[in-house]
């Protein structure tokens, strides 16, 4: 007696109404022509991708009753990350990861580029906001017990994202190559070098030598620009897939109303 899993459908108010004979003819209104064109383009794509099923699965999935503003913290973190990506790409258009030019290129961004300091500031403070939001999102998950069955794996993906976020903030800290950046990185590397077992290999691998040099800067830049963002985007996708697949957890104090046997299920 396997139950067929149906894709969730749009709420009644949003469903397209079937056409009736007394409706005015469609083809002569420009508005209707545009609508027709849109519908047929969407249908063309859908016929070749079957994306509409995925869209329905994502957008019309039922959210359990009782969710509140705490449940927007994950979205908030993702928005902060998207902000980092966009502002980071803009900064990368002007930034030069070499010991001789890094600082000057940052000065150029701040002083010459249109809205340069604003974009730089959004990247710098966006990282702080992202770290705060990651911790708030994690605290919500912890205190609501949302990491428990069946969402254990999503918690682990989330902790990996936390670690990657912190690596981002360490590697990004060096890039402006001012005094603060340089000396904080020297201390961080010495701490890394002090680690048991892997310690002696940390500075050569990360710095490209015993000291902070151009090689260090370009390594940190590649790590900060390509490796970690790629990993973060991949893991956020996995995180979101699991959220949608398993469903958003309900607050632990919310109990289901008593229902009879005629319960209609949106999704199983």
């Amino acid at each position: 007696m396997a139950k067929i899993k149906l894709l969730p459908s749009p709420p009644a108010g949003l469903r397209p109404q079937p056409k009736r004979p007394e409706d005015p003819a469609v083809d002569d209104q420009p508005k209707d022509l545009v609508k027709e064109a849109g519908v047929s383009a969407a249908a063309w794509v859908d016929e070749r991708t079957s994306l509409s099923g995925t869209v329905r699965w994502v957008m019309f999935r039922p959210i359990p009753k009782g969710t509140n503003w705490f449940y927007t913290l994950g979205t908030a973190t993702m928005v902060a990350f998207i902000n980092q990506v966009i502002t980071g790409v803009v900064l990368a258009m002007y930034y030069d990861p070499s010991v001789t030019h890094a600082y000057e290129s940052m000065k150029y961004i701040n002083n010459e580029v249109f809205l340069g300091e604003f974009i730089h500031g959004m990247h710098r403070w966006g990282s702080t906001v992202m770290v705060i939001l990651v911790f708030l999102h994690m605290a919500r998950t912890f205190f609501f017990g949302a990491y428990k069955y069946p969402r254990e794996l999503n918690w682990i993906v989330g902790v990996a994202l936390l670690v990657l976020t912190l690596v981002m903030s360490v590697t990004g800290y060096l890039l402006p190559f001012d005094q603060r950046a340089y000396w904080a990185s020297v201390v961080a590397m010495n701490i890394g070098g002090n680690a048991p077992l892997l310690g002696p290999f940390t500075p050569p691998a990360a710095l490209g030598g015993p000291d902070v040099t151009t090689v260090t800067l370009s390594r940190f830049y590649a790590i900060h620009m390509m490796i970690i963002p790629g990993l973060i985007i991949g893991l956020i996708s996995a995180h979101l897939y699991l959220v949608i697949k398993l469903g958003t957890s309900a607050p632990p104090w919310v109990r289901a109303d008593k229902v009879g046997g005629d319960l209609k299920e949106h999704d199983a």
Partner: protein
Amino acid sequence: MNQREKEEYLREYSVLKAQGKPFFPYIIVKDGVMMIVVIGTIMLLSIVLGGELTAKADATTTTYAPRPEWYYFWAFELLRVIKPPALVSLATVGVPTIAMLLLFLLPFYDRNPERHPLRRPVATTAGIFVIGAMFFLSYLGAEAEPPSRVDMEPPPSVATAGGATLEKWEAGRKLVAQSSCGGCHKIGANGNDGPGPQLTQIGDRLKQGAIRETLINPTLPMPSFAKLGPEKLDDIAFFLSTLKSGSGGGH
């Protein structure tokens, strides 16, 4: 959780979902508002605080006392309060590693099927304690004075010698302050006690030459100061070698 508890949860959850609302358009509105709030906050921070730069990085004149980003203050403070040298490696690497392992493995050792924070007193208390400890350590780390001052009077032998000797001593004192030795070492009334050893009486333990050698080839995590050049290294080594017990170098 055993099989019965799992099934119970899934049953309850599917009822909750059936009694809830579709994500679009009911829940997505809140997410949209939150997105605007986040972007607005970041823009406001950028306008108010900007993206100022300090001076260009310079490996030779080490006048800069390194401070981590504020959300690492708690780790920084932990590093400062843990003094025994044997424990320093534990504090710098061990504590973060253990904390991360505890976070990763949380769903595996917390096997309590209960989810309500008030019905899992151990987990909730531990969570509040960790957050409280991080806030407290962050506060201490933020309050810590910038360790770039060394207030010392020249010991009698140097003071009476005067001239070039006194000048050399004074130059060494300033270099020690500028090089942020106080970030990791206690020197008289200044500096942080740890992770490095106290330097207040370093002259008792090491001769000038040995101090100079340590500055060039230190044991990790201390950075090498070889870049300062032989002259400045001489000044620093001379200054430090005069710091002895009972020499009046205290202050």
